[in-house]
């Protein structure tokens, strides 16, 4: 099978994504809304991409979240600003082995600087009105506990609430009720806490709206990723990083649902017309964990060998919601039967919807993640898996060595490379590229003459 691939040098038609600029605008405006929230009476809050962002939405539609991880990634993309952040964090005495996003975030507080999506750096880091986080990775709760401590040293008091979701993963059967209720009870208390710290009333209608948007957006993103099963693949992972980010920033907002509906239509059209993301696609791979954000050019280098990355459990399952059909196929999750009408229904729905998030499985069961990776390899027709052993994120790298063993045992070629998503000092680009190209050559691929 391998030899047939090598000789095929068919060139597929390609064209840029029409929706691309709209995505850029949406992201830029999102960060500006966060920055200027206080100017027109709005609220700013800080929390992670997995935080229950639909809950604060009940405080009003002028409530904006910074979402720590994408902000950490944006910082990582601009290498010299990242270097300053790391220097400030190490000068404050924090070990450099900690999560790279977290260090970037703390660094911008210590430097009192704020970087926008296009790289412009402005003075005084915007202090959030409150922190609304959830905890599954060791660094989740403490990320904002220390951010709060750093703000306090600058004389600013930031109240913090953090929901513990480390209740396990529903591998074969749903989670027991006491686990679901443990999270629901924390969210219930959380709403009372939000009212207390913001002095605002809480609107359950807005909550139900936000929950339903989140459910639709996370299902839509999964449907878009499923389209990448087509040969040639309509999207490549490097592009998808800029598209899935909407889901991490504002999965509970209507603009996100609208954006993904439009994107899905465009990608379906590309599949119909056989439009490829990479013209010389001939070797389909999937990756794992976040990429080295400062070195995305590595994807362009791979394309010189006709290698396209279709995505990963990371890009598909960090935000996208999926389920296994009885026949073992992995498909986008079905929408719940009805839109929630009361607070109680909304909380129960969002917790039950969220607890089997694919990227929460590996925190407990390496086999669960290996199974999903192998389903993607099979259904998306991937030829190999590139595992980014990401020193910058212990949360997504936990059990990754076990995943490698599982993938290898299933006879799928797998190539691990070490790096760091957010600390450019720890990513040896030349060395990694040499090893990656050696792997491609050992798979019989040659650099294609331009």
């Amino acid at each position, binding site marked *: 099978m391998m030899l047939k691939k090598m000789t095929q040098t068919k060139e597929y038609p390609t064209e840029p994504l029409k929706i691309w600029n709209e995505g850029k605008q949406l992201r830029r405006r999102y960060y500006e809304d966060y920055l200027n929230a206080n100017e027109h009476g709005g609220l700013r809050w800080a929390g992670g991409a997995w935080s229950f962002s639909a809950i604060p939405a009940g405080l009003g539609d002028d409530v904006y979240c910074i979402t720590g991880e994408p902000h950490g990634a944006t910082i990582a993309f601009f290498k010299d600003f990242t270097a300053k952040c790391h*220097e400030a964090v*190490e*000068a404050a*005495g924090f070990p450099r082995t900690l999560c790279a996003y977290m260090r970037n975030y703390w660094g911008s507080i210590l430097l009192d600087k704020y970087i926008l999506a296009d790289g412009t750096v402005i003075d005084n880091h915007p202090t959030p009105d409150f922190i609304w986080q959830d905890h599954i990775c060791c660094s989740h709760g403490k990320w904002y506990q220390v951010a709060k401590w750093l703000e306090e040293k600058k004389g600013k008091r930031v109240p913090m609430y953090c929901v513990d979701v480390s209740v396990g993963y529903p591998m074969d059967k749903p989670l027991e009720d006491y686990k679901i209720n443990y999270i629901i009870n924390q969210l219930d208390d959380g709403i009372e806490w939000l009212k207390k710290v913001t002095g605002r009333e809480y609107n359950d209608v807005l909550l139900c709206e936000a929950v339903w948007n989140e459910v639709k957006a996370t299902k839509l993103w999964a449907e878009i990723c499923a389209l990448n099963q087509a040969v040639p693949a309509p999207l490549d992972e490097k592009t998808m990083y800029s598209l899935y980010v909407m889901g991490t920033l504002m999965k509970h907002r209507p603009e996100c649902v609208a954006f993904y509906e439009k994107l899905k239509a465009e990608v379906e059209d590309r599949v119909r017309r056989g439009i490829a993301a990479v013209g010389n696609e001939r070797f389909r791979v999937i990756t794992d964990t976040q990429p080295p954000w400062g070195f995305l050019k590595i994807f362009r280098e791979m394309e010189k060998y006709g290698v396209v990355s279709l995505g990963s459990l990371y890009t598909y399952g960090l935000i996208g919601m999926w389920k296994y059909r009885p026949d073992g196929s992995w498909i986008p999750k079905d929408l719940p039967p009805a839109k929630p009408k009361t607070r109680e229904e909304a909380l129960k729905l969002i917790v039950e919807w969220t607890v089997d998030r694919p990227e929460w499985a590996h925190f407990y069961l390496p086999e669960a993640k290996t199974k999903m990776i192998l389903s993607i390899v099979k259904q998306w027709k991937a030829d190999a898996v590139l595992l980014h052993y990401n020193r910058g994120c212990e949360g997504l790298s936990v059990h990754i060595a076990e995943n490698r063993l599982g993938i290898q045992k299933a006879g799928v070629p797998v190539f691990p490379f070490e790096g760091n998503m957010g600390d450019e*000092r*720890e990513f*040896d680009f030349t060395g990694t590229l040499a090893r990656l190209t050696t792997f491609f050559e050992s798979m019989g691929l040659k650099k294609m003459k331009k």
Partner: protein
Amino acid sequence: MTEQSEEFWRWREYRHTDPDKDWHDAKIVTAGVDIGSVGSKAVVTLDGELYAYSVMRTGGVSEETAIEAMNRALEGTGLKTDNVHYVVGTGYGRVNVPFAKRTITEIACHARGAHYIYGPTVRTVLDIGGQDCKAIRCDEKGKVMSFLMNDKCAAGTGRGLEVFADLIRVPIEKLGKTSLNVEEEPPPVSNTCVIFAKAESVALLRQGWLKEKVAAAYHLAMVNRIVDLLTRVGIEKDFVVTGGVAKNTGIIFRLEKSLGIRPLEPKLDPILAGAIGAALFAKALYEKQIGLR
């Protein structure tokens, strides 16, 4: 099979006696012996003033090095080790100075020695030693307030420079100057590990970079690492550099540029700071012993 390999990493050993001083007039004769991981220094002081010293490479057995360093310092003065009232050992091999009555760490000695060499305004001392690099905050008397050490990576140390001098075949004493004659600073060698930094430098040479440019890139990477340590301990003026690497103009120039603070000019050999500090502590200990203090 390999060409005659001149050892570019080996630096010159030396000794010195102050011609205007005579130990016969002195009330208290004390000495400090600093057995470093790469270099060893012995200093003799008369009533707290520098009289004679020696600098040599640390050998495999530190007792022998300590005796040799002391003998070289005393050479030609007529003094013998047992005439010295009190000796303090410091440095990596301080426990192996047979004739030392007491040992004190090189952290305390470098701070005290820097106070002697540069004066009471010193508040931050950077000692770039053979195997490690120490950042020390001290008070107006040269007493240590806080300190940090980096010996996790030899890239920020004298050892890293020796490896590099060997690589680009430039005598270590000229390395600093070589790294300075470039039009503009190239990007620093990125790797944190000295061996990888070396491999990367070889790659740069093979891409046709001139020795001077590669030296500049390596020195910049080294200074970045040292600045990391200094910022963690916090820098307060006046700032001084001690240890052998203080004579490398390439490091000092870039430190000043990166920190925005000019290190004070040493009026005598900064490599002696540890041994001088030890000798001064020896004086204080002797005074205590005979009830003078």
